[in-house]
């Protein structure tokens, strides 16, 4: 397939004696929006974190546009620049302004001229309604604003894929929507997105495909309609009956 962007082959990850991922093989295509659902501790986040090597897989391969990125000889940070990631706890940099959060990596790693990085950052901040906060420090932002900043920070590197690791789980209920709206807009713009989420309604609405991960394996995958209306796997049925 020419339009594949990420492919995993028998991906396994153990923490000590605990095998969290027990062999996951899947392909993410360009422009696809894939939601990953499943019970806590089932390996969803670990899977996502293996894709940009925040966790080093114990076994198996991760291909990014056909290149095996688990190869130790490769410069990991170069690949990470092409995959944006958004965390549950935002992890914005508290020691710099909102604007500097966004321009830091482009200036340091892509050698974008400062003025240009600033322009692009302001444009992105405008897109998510944070332009007037550009010179504030993150401590003055609400949770929803911090998460929007984190998204913009990742987008500033012009990634080819965005990985979302439970982006709304740490938010107060009234702020969930503003973040989901930003992600939704992003999926509509054609960005390839992998979203680990507990927001089932959202997953159903934005996804092209849903993966149900449980006990370290993909138990079931399919279109959102199929997964949410007529799931086949007993564990999927059980999980959905509990959350829906």
């Amino acid at each position, binding site marked *: 397939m020419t339009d594949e962007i990420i492919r995993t082959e028998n991906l396994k990850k153990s923490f000590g004696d605990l095998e969290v991922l027990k062999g996951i093989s899947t392909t993410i295509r360009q422009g696809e929006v894939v939601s990953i659902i499943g019970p806590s501790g089932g390996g969803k986040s670990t899977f996502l974190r293996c894709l*940009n090597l925040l966790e080093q897989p114990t076994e198996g391969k991760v291909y990014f546009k056909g290149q095996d990125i688990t190869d130790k000889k490769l410069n990991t*940070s170069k690949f*990470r620049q092409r995959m944006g990631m958004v965390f549950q*706890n935002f992890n914005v940099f*508290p020691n710099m302004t909102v604007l500097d959060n966004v321009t830091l990596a482009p200036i*340091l*790693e892509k050698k974008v001229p400062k003025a240009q990085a600033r322009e692009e950052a302001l444009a992105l901040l405008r897109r998510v309604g944070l332009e007037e906060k550009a010179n504030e*420090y993150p401590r003055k932002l609400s949770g929803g604003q911090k998460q929007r900043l984190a998204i913009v*920070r990742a987008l500033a590197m012009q990634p080819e894929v965005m990985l979302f690791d439970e982006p709304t789980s740490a938010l107060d209920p009234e702020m969930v929507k503003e973040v989901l709206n930003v992600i939704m807009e992003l999926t509509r713009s054609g960005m390839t997105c992998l979203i680990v989420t507990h927001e089932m309604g959202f997953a159903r609405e934005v996804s092209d495909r849903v993966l149900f991960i449980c006990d370290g394996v993909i138990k079931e995958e399919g279109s959102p309609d199929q997964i949410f209306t007529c799931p086949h796997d007993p564990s999927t049925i059980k999980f959905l009956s509990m959350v829906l």
Partner: protein
Amino acid sequence: MEKIIGLLDKYYMVYLQGLWGTLWISAVTVLCGTLLGLLIAALRMSRSKLLNSFAGAYIEVLRGTPILLQLYFFWIGLPKLLPFELSDTMCIVVALVINASAYISEIIRAGINAVDKGQWEAARSVGLSEIHMMTHVIMPQAVKNILPALCNEFITTVKGTSLASVFFVGELMTSYKSVQAATFLALQSLTIVGVIYFLLNFILSRLLRVLERRLTASD
């Protein structure tokens, strides 16, 4: 009191020389100790097992033996090891620097480890190189954890230089000993030196507090 004034009147140059000695030895120890401490902390946190255990052993040995023993060790040992002449004072300074570096490296390491794990991950996820991650994201945050303990360590270092008087290297305690030997006014001379130490550390701690406040201004 009169005797103290008498001593000051007659021997103030001795005390000033001692003060100068304490000041420069402290400054060199703090500065070089911090730089060396940074290096040791980097080794201690490196992925290489060899470097890691070397730094670990270095820290354990220096923290596990008395500083006075270390001073003797370097005072006797260094001249024998080195192919060139080294004054007693320099041997002692080297010992003080090495001792301070062990404590400071642990302070730095603890400060770096206290930075939220999510910050490392976020820095890596945007594709920052390990160096840039440290210089722009981790260290600026670690400094705030490190500073208060480091300030304490600086003050401990200043006081620790008094041990160097065992070897008559010409800092404040040496001044006390000289004057006491010449006049037999031990208590008075001690009082003078004590007041100087106190003022020195008092001023130092105030300065450090101002610095600390400046650096943590963004919170």
